[in-house]
């Protein structure tokens, strides 16, 4: 766990065992999960289907009881209730009472959150406008599309102006416009100083908006930290574009830096390690070239994610082989 006094979510060695059926042996879903979320950040909790993302979130929300370990939100144990005044939660594929209108359901959640009549009258219409449902406020929820329900879900999570918001697969099943809208909402929350914990398996969204991520595979955290932190120094690359080159310079640079060179018109583009950039630029400028651009090349989170999943799979295969070996 990160040593930081401003952690709003702290999970330490969280274990969850399930009994799949009556009389069957217990199955371990979470194997000592640990991570922490700092105040004001967007934290992506990433993993393939069945990795334990939703189980972890349910344990944090107190919907299931952990078999071991600790989980604290805003310094309170998750089995307590009082800290819930300061958190909001959007479950995966949220379902709401279809017989209520958008205004009625938000009023219901506002009452549960302890808002008095005056605050409810002000907060509910304000929030409906905020999530773009102002005109649909008197429509029954059973007539809403998935995207609209997702926005109702976000609104109910925010109705009491919480400090920390937990979102379970907030973009799943949405079209590109819906995804962008939810992304914008999340970024707006961050700009208002709120902490967002987001469960997802859509990596591009995580890459775009998350400050830090944890990758969970088969109930174990494989990585936690900034995306950049996952990479070896050698993995950090930059794309440099130079123009007006002396004819032989491209070949020299290619040989010296082992860079991949691509010619585009009168320019060349080189991909080099980040630590080699200043040396390359010095050489190029000395030789009379002009620097057009230097762009840090971000290694895709997908690469890290796939690596984590494949490491886990090969680990499993190794274990399986070992077990077979023991039997034979």
């Amino acid at each position, binding site marked *: 766990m990160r040593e930081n006094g401003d952690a709003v979510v702290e999970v330490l060695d969280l274990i969850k065992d399930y009994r799949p059926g009556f009389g069957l042996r217990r199955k371990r879903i979470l194997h000592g999960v640990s991570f922490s979320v700092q105040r004001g950040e967007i934290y992506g909790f990433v993993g393939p289907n069945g990795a334990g993302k939703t189980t972890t979130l349910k344990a944090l929300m*107190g*919907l*299931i009881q952990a078999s071991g370990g600790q989980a604290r939100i805003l310094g309170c144990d998750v089995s307590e209730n009082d800290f819930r005044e300061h958190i909001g939660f959007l479950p995966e594929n949220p379902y709401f009472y279809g017989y209520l209108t958008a205004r009625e359901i938000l009023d219901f959640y506002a009452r*549960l959150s*302890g808002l008095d009549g005056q605050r409810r009258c002000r907060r509910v219409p304000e929030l409906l406008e905020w999530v773009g449902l102002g005109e649909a406020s008197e429509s029954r929820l059973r007539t809403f599309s998935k995207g609209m329900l997702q926005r109702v*879900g976000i609104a109910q999570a925010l109705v009491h102006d919480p400090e920390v918001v937990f979102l379970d697969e907030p973009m799943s099943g949405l079209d590109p416009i819906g995804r962008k809208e939810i992304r914008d909402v999340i970024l707006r929350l961050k700009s208002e100083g709120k902490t967002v914990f987001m469960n997802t398996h859509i990596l591009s969204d995580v890459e775009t908006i998350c400050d830090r991520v944890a990758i969970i595979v088969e109930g174990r955290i494989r990585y936690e930290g900034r995306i950049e932190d996952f990479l070896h120094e050698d993995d950090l690359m930059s794309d440099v574009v130079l123009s007006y080159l002396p004819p032989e310079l491209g070949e020299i640079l290619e040989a010296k830096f082992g860079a991949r060179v691509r010619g585009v018109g009168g320019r060349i583009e080189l991909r080099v390690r980040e630590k080699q950039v200043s040396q390359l630029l010095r050489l190029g400028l000395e030789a009379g070239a002009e620097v057009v651009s230097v762009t840090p090349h971000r290694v895709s989170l997908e690469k890290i994610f796939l690596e984590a999943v494949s490491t886990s799979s090969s680990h499993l295969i190794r274990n399986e082989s070992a077990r077979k070996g023991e039997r034979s």
Partner: protein
Amino acid sequence: MIRMRHVWPIATNTVREAIRNKVLYALLFFAVGVIGVAVVIASLSYVEGQRIIQDIGLASIRLFSLGIAVFVGVGLIHGEVERRTIYTILSKPLSRSEFLVGKYLGLLMTVWLQLACMMIAFVAVSLATGAPLSGGHVAALGLLGMELVVIVALATFFSAFTSPLLASLFTLGIWGAGHLSRDLYALGQQSGNESFAGASTWMYRLLPDLEAFNVSVQAVHGLPIATSELTLPILYAVGYAVALLIAAGWIFQGRDLK
């Protein structure tokens, strides 16, 4: 600790859900219809037609109230878990026990509302046919309302940890056994078998004594009803329901909502 500011929104929303449920209207319509049909059945008899009307009326009110309580009650918690509406509710600052009590009170208000509608139909039919109405009828219907306090608590209790099918079987089974528990106790005492007498005494203590809420015979025949026949069942119903809700809350608290 149960805080009413958390319980009340759940209760009122449960009533609102029932009011917008068309199946309940159909049940209520059918119940009122049966009370009206009593007039036709009574006309087939040469004697005591008014008594038959009131007998059938009170019996149908009892059965339909039970039906509505069980029909709505057994799916009360299960439905919330299945539809996952409970996830967002329990993320708010209310405890599971407050949620459970809210659902219970909401269902109780719903069945009382339906009971009031059936009572109006019963009074209308009695007045139309000239059947006598007395304080005994008010007592009978009031005690039926208190019996529903126990039935709804039973349905809520079973709904907290079983499927609607099992919850309805258990609730109906205990309703039947609850109406026979006095007879079972008497049988045990008269059997001369010590172990059977002991078992029947325990059964009588454990099962709800639902016959305590039945003063229909006195009401229809105009017999006097003692004050203790009213006050003790009211206290008994409240005590029994509170015990059931505490047990339900305890079980529900430890349940994983998958």
